[in-house]
């Protein structure tokens, strides 16, 4: 691992205020606006603020990780990615830095929502909090990879809408804005989507076993492997001039 390179990548990410707003402020505002008046409502067996805190943390952290794709597309457009390719920077270190930065932003969102949840009376034990954060971080892996993939696949102009669409679709199907399928075939389908398990993280923590079902680990694993493969292929091929 090249820590100097990583350090500057992190610095660059933190200095980009625009993404902070989207992945941090929006979910927080929505959380207070919607969970505030519905403190006593029960959804899918848990208190609404807890459900909605997890949902907004999922949405915000998905936005955070996927938006690393926007930074990548911008770097490609100005030719910086090609410049990096004529340095000894390895594909692994390049991806590692992108992943760490995406994760860092996601972690900010998760922590901010945790604080917001506590304010609205969400009550979890210490180990439960830890487990919830850990499950969210694991569930985010496919989205970090999808962000990198999209960043290398698309141009800046088309990436904005694409990211917006992808994030909304994952958030909507996963239940970030409320559960949309209670039963039947469509529920089966959304259970194969990683964002569903992100949103379910709090239910999993409070379930009798205290852990998400085996299916969730498989879904996250398969999406991660497939998307990583694609991302590496696309990155390796992506040395042509962009504009």
């Amino acid at each position, binding site marked *: 691992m090249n820590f100097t390179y990583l350090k*500057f990548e992190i610095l*660059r990410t933190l200095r980009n205020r625009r993404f902070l707003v989207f992945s941090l402020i929006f979910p927080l505002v929505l959380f207070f606006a919607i969970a505030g008046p519905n403190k006593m409502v029960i959804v899918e067996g848990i208190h609404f603020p807890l459900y909605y805190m997890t949902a907004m943390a999922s949405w915000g952290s998905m936005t955070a990780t996927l938006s690393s794709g926007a930074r990548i597309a911008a770097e490609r457009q*100005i030719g910086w990615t090609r410049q990096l390719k*004529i340095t000894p920077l390895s594909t692994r270190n390049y991806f590692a830095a992108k992943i760490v930065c995406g994760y860092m932003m996601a972690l900010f969102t998760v922590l901010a929502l945790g604080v917001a949840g506590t304010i609205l009376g969400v009550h979890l034990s210490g180990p439960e909090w830890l487990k919830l954060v850990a499950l969210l971080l694991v569930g985010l892996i496919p989205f970090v990879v999808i962000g990198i993939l999209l960043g290398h696949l698309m141009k800046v102009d088309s990436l904005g809408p694409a990211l917006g669409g992808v994030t909304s679709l994952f958030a909507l199907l996963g239940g970030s804005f409320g559960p949309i399928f209670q039963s039947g075939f469509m529920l089966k389908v959304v259970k194969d989507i990683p964002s569903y398990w992100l949103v379910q993280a709090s239910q999993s923590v409070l379930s009798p076993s205290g852990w998400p079902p085996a299916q969730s680990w498989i879904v996250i694993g398969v999406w991660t492997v497939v998307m990583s493969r694609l991302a590496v292929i696309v990155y390796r091929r992506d040395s042509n001039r962009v504009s």
Partner: protein
Amino acid sequence: MNETTRRPHGIVVDHLSKSFGSVAAVRDVSLTIETGEIVALLGPNGAGKTTTIDMILGLSRPDKGTVTLFGTTPANAVLAGHVGGMLQTGSPPQYLNVRELITMVASLYPHPLDVDHVLEMTGTAEIATRSTTKLSGGQTQRVRFAVALVADPDLLVLDEPTAAIDVEGRRDFWNIMRSVVAGGKTVIFATHYLEEADAYADRIVLMARGRVVADGPPTEIKAKVGGRVIRATLSEVSAEELMTIEGVAKAERQGEGITLSCSDSATSDRVLRELLTRYPAARDFEVHGVGLEEAFLVLTADNEDSAVSGTDDANPELDGPGFER
């Protein structure tokens, strides 16, 4: 870099070809560049300079042919930190100042130069704390040069490094480049300014329509492309004899007609006077400047199959003599 640690073998470009769809961007280009040479790739827009450079750097894969840098593949040479490059398009990334950027890039190389030293050498020390997005055209190019240089590479590849800067800035840039590479680095730079190639390269490789159409020291290339051509009708004097006129770089005969190439207009004036004195029978004089445009047409016509393909795009993107805009 001193003599003993210098890389052997130099750069070998062997029968390189690359097409984009139906556009043959590079056609059968071969070059051997010795370690320590400063070589200009000169040619109009679309000549294939960037495509060639991309293949030299391993950024794109040739359809045919190979590139060898210091006895190994471009990818290996890049990995070993032997190569520094300034691509045609590419601006430094946002949210860093100049020193941070150079420090970050330095960290990628096994044996980088001292960052402050590089800032000093490239004339970017006074803008070291400025954001990379708040630089003038000339400053950006110097910063990008610093990015290429901090690797302390054996091969420095610069693709139109002065494209976006004014004449004065251009001179500054090349002076910096000259002083920095005095240590014996191999340099390949692309340009469409004849004067730049002439002033700063040891050797000019002239490209047009994807081919190398001339390759030699600047004086030779200048005689071909920057000079004057005298045409006249004069029989019974051999081309060899005409070559003895001082200032004639090249003499040719086509039937009754002769063509004499000279490096510049002062020379052609002298040659013309001498021609008239020696051969009063000479007539039908015609003197004109050779822009790169004409030079390319002449030079590509020497090459049979490109003369044929040359007619299909009879309007190459040329901007007059020397391509000065």
